[in-house]
């Protein structure tokens, strides 16, 4: 038995062992739930050098919380001070014990160092370490105080729905809040007795009566140990599971894993990596504009983690990706949502028998133009594109002019994955047979589908990319108009595919482009995204009006967009001109 043992260490020891065992069981179970492909990818990459960048990311995100800092300084400070501070307490405590002791060094010694090592000069510079440890503790305490304040105020945000599983959250949270104040008190008592504290603990210790300290020292350390033990046992069942899981997730991602069509072990890691910071709530249009609660990603993931997902919540999401752009853990929230929409078992395949009669068209030397179903409802866009093709003498096959099928993405969004893959199969066949070398589409929904869900051997462009290329190469000559224009980034083109520059460059060439409040990743959804099948048209209108308000704030002459859906949404509600970039380019072509 070590010299450095006291019965009060037991709760801590028990907690650590429980924590390790439970985490291992969970992680191994989730690993087993990986599908075969995920396992192969993992094994292929696990011994590559990618772990270096994973370590870097771990430090930046899991310790410094860089992304949260960027969004919200206070929140970032809160997370970083606790995470990084605690980490340093452990590391510096370990160094301290390493320096002070020779052979008998049980692993808990760093945690209870001051109780066991009374000599303030146990090793050279021991004083410095005492001050350093106090300083770190002070930082952690400041974070804990912030967390406390935030919790009192975020009650008003409805972030705490009581439920039996969240009981673990409560245990974990209260014990976490107690750990560091208790450590402060225990160390101060010991300092009062042995003068071995740093500036903080000794400062407090000097205020404490010797005999009081003598009586309360052991109870205080016992409580500290209990707080630690409770936290460790509750942690794997609470949201604090994110502390370890986030790190593992960073590694898994670096090794090439990602979500796939179904809930898998990877999904389980993602669910537990959510720290329920709540950043996704404030930016969700359903909350911001409609005050709907309980449907946001934070709630959705929580329900899913505790195995009580609700179908209507899975469906009640615009899939605008606003939350994904904000999520500090970078969770693939859209795919997880889709996994739960899976309606594979519904047999509607008979509806797709007709597609086998569709014929391809010999398009060697041509491009394919795929307008998209939505563009057929905004014929102005199609008209503009066909005019532009003629203008630059580009021969094309208008693939979905007449008899045609959809790209499949709207079905996918709703969870009809088999049906969607039927459509993709047929479209791929038609495109390959045609011999064309490029596909241009006017609809960001189709664009995302062709780009990410198909595996086409030819180049896929959205028409803004194509037009930008034409203008840049000098093939298409345009003039500058004196119109003031604002640009609305469509969700599916911007956040989903990262096309931000080309539309802006085109607009700068043909008009005066005004800045708006919500640009690029922060662009607001027009509300008519096909993702949501639950909300009512009036509610879509509310979301649209919010986006519209931010666009027309500077009184532009034209609202330009690059998506037929957004165009239709805005056109219904404003007298301001709403045009697709293609239409504006057509109007400004030099003949």
């Amino acid at each position: 038995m070590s010299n450095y043992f006291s019965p009060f260490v037991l709760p801590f020891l028990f907690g650590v062992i429980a924590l390790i065992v439970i985490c291992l069981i969970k992680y191994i179970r989730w690993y087993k739930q990986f599908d075969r492909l995920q396992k192969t990818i993992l094994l292929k990459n696990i011994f590559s050098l990618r772990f270096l960048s994973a370590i870097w990311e771990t430090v930046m995100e899991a310790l410094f919380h860089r992304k949260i800092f960027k969004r919200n300084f206070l929140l970032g400070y809160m997370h970083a001070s606790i995470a990084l501070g605690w980490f340093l307490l452990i590391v510096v405590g370990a160094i301290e014990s390493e320096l002070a002791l020779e052979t008998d060094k049980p692993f808990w010694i760093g945690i209870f160092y001051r109780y066991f090592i009374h000599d303030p000069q146990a090793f050279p510079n021991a004083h410095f370490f005492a001050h350093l440890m106090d300083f770190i503790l002070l930082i952690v305490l400041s974070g804990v105080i912030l967390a406390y304040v935030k919790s009192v105020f975020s009650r008003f945000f409805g972030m705490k729905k009581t439920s039996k599983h969240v009981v673990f959250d409560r245990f974990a949270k209260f014990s976490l809040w107690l750990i560091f104040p208790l450590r402060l008190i225990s160390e101060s008592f010991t300092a009062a007795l042995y003068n071995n504290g740093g500036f903080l603990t000794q400062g407090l210790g000097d205020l404490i009566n010797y005999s009081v300290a003598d009586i309360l020292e052991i109870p205080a350390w016992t409580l500290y140990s209990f707080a630690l033990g409770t936290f460790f046992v509750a942690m794997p069942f609470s949201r604090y599971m994110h502390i370890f899981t986030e790190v593992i997730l960073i590694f898994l991602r670096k090794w090439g894993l990602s979500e796939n069509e179904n809930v898998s072990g990877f999904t389980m890691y993602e669910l537990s990596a959510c720290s329920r910071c709540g950043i996704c709530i404030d930016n969700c249009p359903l909350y911001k504009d409609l005050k709907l609660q309980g449907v946001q990603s934070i709630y959705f993931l929580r329900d899913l983690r505790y195995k009580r997902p609700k179908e209507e919540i899975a469906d009640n999401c615009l899939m605008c990706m606003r939350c994904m752009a904000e999520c500090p853990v970078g969770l693939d929230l859209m795919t997880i949502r889709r996994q739960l929409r899976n309606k594979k078992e519904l047999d509607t395949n008979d509806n797709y028998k007709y597609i086998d009669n569709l014929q391809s068209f010999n398009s060697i030397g041509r491009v394919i133009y795929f307008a998209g179903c939505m563009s057929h409802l905004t014929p102005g866009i199609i008209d503009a594109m066909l005019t532009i093709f003629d203008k630059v003498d580009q021969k094309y096959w208008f693939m979905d002019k007449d008899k045609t099928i959809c790209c499949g993405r709207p079905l996918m969004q709703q969870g009809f994955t088999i049906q969607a893959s039927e459509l993709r199969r047929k479209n791929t066949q038609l495109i390959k047979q045609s011999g064309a070398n490029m596909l241009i589409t006017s609809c960001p929904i189709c664009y995302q589908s062709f780009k990410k869900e198909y595996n086409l051997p030819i180049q896929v462009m959205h028409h803004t990319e194509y037009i930008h290329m034409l203008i840049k190469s000098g093939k298409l000559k345009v003039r500058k108009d004196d119109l003031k224009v604002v640009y609305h980034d469509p969700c599916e083109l911007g956040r989903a595919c990262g096309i931000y520059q080309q539309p802006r460059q085109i607009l700068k060439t043909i008009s005066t482009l005004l800045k708006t409040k919500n640009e690029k990743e922060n662009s607001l959804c027009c509300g008519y995204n096909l993702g949501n099948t639950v909300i009512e048209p009036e509610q879509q209108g509310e979301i649209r009006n919010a986006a519209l308000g931010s666009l027309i704030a500077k009184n532009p002459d034209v609202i330009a967009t690059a998506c037929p859906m957004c165009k239709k949404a805005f056109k219904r509600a404003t007298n301001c001109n709403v045009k697709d970039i293609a239409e504006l380019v057509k109007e400004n072509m030099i003949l």
Partner: protein
Amino acid sequence: MKKVAIIGAGPAGIEAASILANQQVEVLLFEKSLNTLSNMLDKAYLFPDFSPANDLVDKLNKKLLHQQITLFTGTEITDVKKDGKEWKVIDAKGMSYIVSAVLLTSGYSVFDAKRKEELGYGIYNGVITSIDLEKMIKYNQIENSMGDKPKRIVFLQCVGSRDEKSGNNYCSKICCVTAVKQAIEVKKLLPDTDVYIFYMDLRMWGQSFEEMYRESQEKYDVSYVRGRISEAASTFDKKIQIKAEDTLLGVPLKMTTDLLVLMVGMEASCGTKTLAETLHIKGEYGFAKSLNCHLQDNETTQQGLFIAGSCKRPMGINETLADARSASVIIMDYINAMQENDK
């Protein structure tokens, strides 16, 4: 005698002006366009009796030649305020007029078909609205975009009405019968042209409407298809190709046509919307709201402020005129009571 301001010289405004004037009330009639009856000028014939619209315009305008009526054309009323017991009516140039009562007859305007881009209005020349067709009939110039006589004309009902997506859930009430009227007139002028009407359901509610509908089929061979057109596109020879579903047969359907006529619905006019808003009498869809649709259908929550005609809801001319006459009676009661009080 007391003064009454009437805002809008459409059928409702003129009819009320003439009745009140005959009762020795002094009427100030304001019209924002340069001509009275701005919504009637390009109409050819009127349902249900196919009387020339010009006749009605002439007869109504004649009623305005009355000592007691002062007509202000080109005068848009932008604000109306209560001023003690009186009312203050203010025009766009800032002139104000003090009157004892106000009658709002600022009428309707039609749905802007460009808002339903999928139907191609403003993009393809072959897509026109019922207003455009009314003019073509009036001047006997029914032509497609190439200047040729159309071989086929397709009408589409309920454009901007009964349509959640365009925000108008109500039925505009007069476009079904207007389509029947226009179809018959097209056939009278161009007997060899095929005419199709695409409808959700046909609402032949008024006197002799049903007979007109039957006649259009039996005598004029107009074809009716139940189904909504989802989109229009242009063909290489500048015709219009429509896609629809025949909901009786349950089959999708495609058709090419020389002209596609959109039967645009009636919305509250811009004047109606703004005045109803400032006067706190805004009802559904921006129309003006009466106190009670049975017993006080010309009165409003504001004492001395009355409403009549299509600024309340979509209606045809005979209903509009009857409504104007009923408003006049109520206004006379109001003025007489005021004069009693003054004594």
